């Protein structure tokens, strides 16, 4: 994680609805865990935000570089993302990808990249606009018994691809099965936050040992 005085997390709450209580538990556990670790949390509940779909105009690249020109909360996406050290993506795994609510907001974050195409590593990517390193913690829920399924695997691959465009950030992915107890959710979140460098790992691992 970045050794910065100000540590800020932008939590993209990508729930489409309240159908899965596990996502609510995850949201609470993430906010609590980040706050306990001294992080400022911008908990962005996307389904409550009236935001247009990105129209692919590229104005955020060529007209007002770094800023979306929409006159709605889309304009906030680039700023909130630019000021975050850690992006936390919370979503029901949707066909192996992100929910529509989450994707709507992510599509509006293009301004954190420069438009240029540049070879970075093996492939071509957009270089970052800012010096701040954005790490990525993505947590998706799947139906019980499907954490090792094909959609979960695609989800892990998607997050791994995303981080390539956020170079050189760190990437942590968690797939959580719906129906987990609150204790299981909090234990899992603590472990993921430790993996992301947000909090020490010790207590988390000790807690994991007492769980089935």
């Amino acid at each position, binding site marked *: 994680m970045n050794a910065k005085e*100000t540590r800020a997390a932008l939590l993209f709450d990508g729930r*489409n609805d309240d159908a899965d209580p596990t996502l609510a538990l995850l949201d609470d556990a993430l906010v609590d865990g980040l706050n306990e670790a001294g992080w400022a949390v911008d908990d962005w509940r996307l389904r409550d935000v009236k935001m247009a*779909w*990105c*129209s*692919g*105009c*590229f104005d955020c*690249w*060529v*007209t*007002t*570089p*770094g*800023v979306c020109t929409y006159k709605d909360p889309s304009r906030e996406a*680039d*700023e909130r993302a*630019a*000021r975050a050290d850690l992006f936390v993506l919370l979503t029901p795994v*949707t*066909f*192996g*990808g*992100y*929910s*529509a*609510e989450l*994707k*709507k*907001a*992510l*599509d509006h974050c293009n301004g954190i990249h*420069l*438009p*240029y*195409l*540049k*070879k970075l590593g093996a*492939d*071509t*990517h957009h270089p970052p*606009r*800012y*010096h*701040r390193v954005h790490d990525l913690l993505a947590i998706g829920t799947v139906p019980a018994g499907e954490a090792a399924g*094909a*959609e979960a695997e*695609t989800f892990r*691959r*998607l997050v791994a*691809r*995303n981080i390539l*465009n956020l170079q050189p950030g760190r990437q942590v992915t968690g797939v959580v099965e719906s129906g987990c107890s609150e204790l299981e959710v909090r234990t899992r979140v603590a472990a993921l936050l430790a993996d992301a460098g947000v909090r020490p790992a010790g207590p988390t691992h000790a807690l994991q040992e007492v769980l089935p």
Partner: protein
Amino acid sequence: MKAPGRVLLLNGSPRPGASTSESLLTYLDEELEKLGVSTQALKLTKAVRSEERTAELLAAIDGSDLVVLAFPLYWDSLPGHVVRACELIARHRAASPAGAAPDRVAPGGPAPGAAARPGFAAIVQGGFPEAEQNAVALEICRHFAAAADLEWAGGLALGGGGMIDGAPLRKLGGRVKTAMQALDQTAAAFAAGRPVPDEAVRLMAKNPPAIVIRFGANSHFRSQHKKQGKAPLDARPFASPPP
């Protein structure tokens, strides 16, 4: 997959005007029509705008033998409004069994609910030169097909989509020759009730050298910025803490 009587072409570009997805679909449409296949085109930005438009989309899906979705790559996956359309389609088809459209069930053929599922194919194009960067997006499309009880009919991935930038493929000629060949083969396969051929996948992924695509794209962005830019291209408007 059976030979399609009706093909539904879904344009997943968010752009209101011309787009690369539209260029690809228009070419495919023309090739299918030459082969006697009737088509219908819908734009997903409109389909997710109102319940009425969504109902039109869902009815069109149920009444089609093959659905072809074309879209640009955003954040290694489908644009948000396309994900929303997929969510709506999958929910609808889970609630009403495949084959519910009565005119797709031959007399004496399978009972409603057991008719052949519509096929589903995807064409994804991204600005990056490497077509393989579209692979995860195609995986997502394949999972969507399963969730929506559609028969996966394969996918095509194009890199360097900015080369097309909404222009008709025939007008671009040699620069997109392999893309047109890929679509020719795909149209022929669809008309015969077959999925996207492997050779079409290979042809669509064939691009000019990456360095050429990067140079062309970067020149295009600089030129656009020169015309309409209101701040330096590499401006960092949110680098400082908020006041």
